[in-house]
């Protein structure tokens, strides 16, 4: 694992190359390093980490930080397979402007996972070749993993439900 010092060194390198505003925060928690960066800098930062050996993207997922602002987070779990070392890159976007550049071109594994994050949180990945819902139905409204999305009251989509409703809403 990059230790707390190693994380700061990486953060400084990012600041040098991408400007002082590129790094938002560094967190070292339970022996794990997390580097929070500005959303528009995600691509270059991931490339920089790839050069340092973190060449495998283990996971990409979203998170809703409600009620904190900016609410939505996208987390990239990177892995260095030769040094057996992990680092998390995080970017936060607001619900009003949930845009973040897609990394599918350089990290093909991000394809389905970015679609899932879009589906569940409504984060729009600019430049994704095929940004559609993946788990929820195509005509679904809302993004169910957001913290303010209510649980329950979901009508089941069967063909007999397609006509005018025969019963009132539940």
């Amino acid at each position, binding site marked *: 694992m990059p230790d707390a010092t190693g994380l700061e060194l990486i953060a400084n390198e990012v600041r040098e190359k991408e400007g002082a505003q590129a790094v938002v925060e560094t967190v070292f928690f339970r022996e794990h390093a997390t580097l929070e960066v500005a959303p528009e800098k995600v691509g270059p930062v991931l490339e920089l980490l790839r050069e340092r050996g973190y060449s495998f993207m*283990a996971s990409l997922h979203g998170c809703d930080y409600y009620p904190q602002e900016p609410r939505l987070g996208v987390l990239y779990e990177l892995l260095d397979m030769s040094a057996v070392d992990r680092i998390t890159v995080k970017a936060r976007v607001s619900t009003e402007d949930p845009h973040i550049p897609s990394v599918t071109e350089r990290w093909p*594994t991000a394809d389905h996972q970015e679609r899932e994050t879009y589906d569940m949180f409504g984060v729009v990945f600019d430049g994704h070749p095929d940004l559609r819902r993946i788990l*929820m139905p*195509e005509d679904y409204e809302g993004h169910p993993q957001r913290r303010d999305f209510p649980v329950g009251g979901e009508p089941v*989509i069967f063909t007999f439900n397609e006509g005018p409703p025969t019963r009132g809403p539940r």
Partner: protein
Amino acid sequence: MSEYRRREQSITLSPLAEQVEGQEESLTQELLTLNFGPHHPATHGVLRLLVTLRGEIVQDIKPIIGYVHTGIEKTAEDKSYWKAIPVVERMDYLAYHFNSMAYVGAVETLLDVQVPKRAQYLRVIHLELNRIMSHLVWLGTSALDLGAISMFWYCFREREKILDLFEMSTGQRMHTRYMQVGGVAEDIPPGFAQKLRSLLDEMPGRIDQYGDLLNSNEIVLQRLRGTCPLDAQTLLSLGVTGPLLRAAGNPWDLRKAAPYCSYEDFDFKIPVGTVGDNYDRYAVRLAEMYESTKIISQALEGLPEGPHITEDRKVALPPRHELATSMEALIHHFKLVTEGFRVPPGEVYYPLEGPRGEYGCFVRSDGSSKPARVHMRDPSFVNLQAFSHMARGAYIADMIATLAMLDPVLGGIDR
């Protein structure tokens, strides 16, 4: 036509297929778009594939998923930490111990709680039994796809014995809720070790038999050898882990690379393939079953004495007998059952090596007694992206064999 149906029909093909469509086509050839699934036995669940065919050759595959999406990650946010374990287990329904282990591992890291050695060994025994069980289901159903029906009965015969063992130690055959934060739910009952030993004595011979049935079977070899290979570099860029990656010659296994749960105590090998074709995928999984058997015997022989769950009463329930005599135990019991324990705020990603690759559970805590976010990085979901790369340019029959060797579990993909 409803809006939903209209959108369903408007699904565009991926750029590669459009490229193929744009080419000059002779009068005798045209592309066929075939809908495959979701209710097709060879999809191992409810996977739907839009397959573009030129004759019998697969030009492109577009997986459509989400048919068994049940919102488990959302449900888990409404439950206290230890009550979320049963729902998390239901994600990948063939690897329930791995799901719950990834989840409790993440929560333990957040809590910074120590797991007793005996609990770790008991976890290893159940994880590896689960790995064999999952591989048996894969082997039986895959052989069924290739036309070898008898394999299915042989594999499920051994699987029953493993499920019997789970029933004995946990009370449930599937979705056992055995992994608990801080340890395991219960110590193994009397007679379990004996029954497990007899299974371990029997198992290598049984795996030999599966190998004898399939390894020199002309049809199996023709269907598997040399079909749909994919190199390790492409697999890595697609995020593929587990037996699929090892079949291509990359010996990445988290049990060896970053041991968790005392895996460093055991002596076992990582089977790897050479070219990464379907035969290697099959051979690697078959060899993994021997290694899992070895790990279980070592864990059973070296099972240390001690508690099966942490003594930290803020996290684990007190033993039943204490409730009658100790006021404090009663208070702890009440607090745990009603509110549950509170977890310090933070975010943790806990990866482990499952039968299909890296199961990674991301848990975010906001300091309350319910997780603010639970996400499972499910290997089936990520590995499915490699499917069209594997099967492109192959015969449609080889696509079926490749799907079988991919071993997707739709419960895990859709969650």
